[in-house]
């Protein structure tokens, strides 16, 4: 992590660790404030709610394994970096995941499925996914980080872009996402 000052969340308690001479982080507070954002961020990378939650939890477990001396300057940016890397690894082990999903598919669902609702959700998710896939990797990453609630400073730290470039990239990414989504919707309406 860089040498930036610690990014402080409102209400997050930061203690001073005398031994390591560093600010330690209250991960419980960060967990409460960030977990859902992290899951949403990961969901748009792996497109599986269960896997997204697993990866988010894994990121927090790793964070909890850090000693005070290893405590990152910007905990949220650190979490999203680790989570993003985990998701990338997840994609690389797609074969293993497919095996896993095969096993899951053999299990009985907990609730009776609603075919109509499932179909609509699947279609909507497919359209969003297609629209996101049309973006460049960097545009998509920055857009998802912004949507997850990270500040421009945190996004800049994670992506190593300058603060000023974040707005430009976001402007481009938003336009492309909306255009691609509308195009996908129009295509589906024309050819349902």
């Amino acid at each position, binding site marked *: 992590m860089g040498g930036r000052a610690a990014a402080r969340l409102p209400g997050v308690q930061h203690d001073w660790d005398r031994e390591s001479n560093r600010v330690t982080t209250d*991960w419980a507070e960060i967990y409460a404030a960030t*977990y859902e954002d992290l*899951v949403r961020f990961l*969901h748009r990378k792996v497109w599986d709610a269960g896997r997204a939650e697993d990866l988010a*939890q*894994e990121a927090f477990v790793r964070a909890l394994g850090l000693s005070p*001396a290893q405590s990152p300057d910007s905990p949220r940016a650190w979490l999203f970096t680790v989570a993003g890397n985990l998701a990338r*690894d997840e994609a690389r082990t797609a074969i293993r995941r497919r095996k896993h999903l095969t096993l899951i598919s053999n299990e009985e669902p907990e609730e009776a499925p609603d075919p109509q609702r499932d179909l609509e959700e699947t279609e909507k998710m497919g359209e969003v996914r297609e629209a996101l896939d049309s973006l460049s990797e960097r545009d998509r990453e920055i857009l998802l980080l912004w*949507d997850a609630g990270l500040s421009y400073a945190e996004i800049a730290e994670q992506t190593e872009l300058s603060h*000023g470039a974040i707005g430009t990239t976001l402007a481009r990414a938003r336009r492309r996402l909306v255009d691609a989504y509308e195009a996908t919707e129009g295509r589906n309406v024309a050819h349902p």
Partner: protein
Amino acid sequence: MSHIPDGRLHAWLDGAASFESAAEEESFHTHLGVCEDCRARLDEARRLREDAQTILSDSGPEAIEPPAFGELEARALVRVHRERAGDSDAEVAASVRRVTGRRGTVRKVAETEPIGPGRRPWLSRRVPLAWAASIVMAIGAGWFGNRILEESPVQATRPVAQSKLAEVSDADLPVLEEDAFVDDASPDVLRGAADAAGPQPVDNFKSEDLSVQSEAARRQFAAIPDEQERFGGYEAPDPGAGQGANQVANVEAGREADRDAVRQREVSQEGEAFALDARLEKRSDDEVGAVAGNRALAEDAPIVIAPTVMAQQVPTAGAEAPAREQNEERIRNAGLSREAVAPAAAEPSLEDVAVNARKSRANADVPAEFIEGALALDALVVGGEVGKDEAKGADTGDDKELANCFALAVEGWKPPFELPSVLVRPAEGAGEQDGENVAWTMLADNSVRIRWRSGDQTMLLTARRVSAGALEGSAAVWLESRGALATRGLVRLSPIACP
């Protein structure tokens, strides 16, 4: 002033526009007020921003239920334990990679971690020693096997085998699966590795080692040493035990040594089995890892009452002597006779006998069955005290009121699956009931430990008697299919009429 760039408009809408001076900010707003083009682009930027937000929000998971933070802390704790043990399969595999220098199926270890914090240099120092120790065992066993072969009548076959082994090249060496190298991967892989490795030893871990600051977290971790004592029987491994491996650390330096090791392992199945047994023995000691996952207990590992718990209750002779002397002096000072002060020695009740016997296992006058039987009654008695009636000379028999069936209620937490509403104590302590496996173990401190399992659903419950027949305690529940992922919470057992 020239037109405002789109990026700056978006940053301003996001509340992240930075201005070097108040004058620059004022100029920005002034321009927006007079430039219709920029205002139109600002409206467009606002529309795009809202649309993008709507699109993304439509694709998210509907309901996200964060697990209890303590659950993640428990997982982190277990992981630190395993890493400190230094002998997980993934770590051994990573060591193999370092020794052999093989590529292709090996992933980058640091790929999922940001550069800097997160890596543990002490871990990488320990792993080679573990691998070196296994090589030493394999070589030693191989040498032993060779000695046997030399003395056996089938000695003539050895040169043939050796000549074949001499032809072994790198390409012939067994290629390890990719999974074996993934020591830093997704939870699935980690769970798989955890399942394969089983519970790992814990060496004097302190909860302070984790960066846990919340009060709830501290309480949760503070409870763990107590649990470790409950599971008992664990002795921390001697940290110096593996130091002998230093003498063979230079084995790592050469690939030739690695090839030799593989050959020896192929030749000597006996050595392989020995090494495997050594690892299994090490793991069987680890009931502490069961604090979060309790995997060992779920696999029918024996549950014993910890000798350390008994030892704490044994009063020492040295502690009694000063008190006796003090009492004698008080009698002398008061000018009283001993008979006038000292109460008549009461006939010890059977309960006292049982308690005393419990305090000192050296008491050979009391059969072990009686001690355990008395202990077993403690937690389940709903009327009177254990052995009271017997002490009064009453006809004892079965006059103790025991509860063998309890209604189970959880308090303040939600288990990940439906727990049984009624727990019935099997006559033999353990047994099958309606497809569920139940085992009851009575503990010395008016407590009972119950393990319940149905399919891959498992609960380990420890409850202490709080009133006549009512027990309170905590339960850890988990799904076998999800590895060591465990949830725990308070439970209450209330006696009911057995169905």
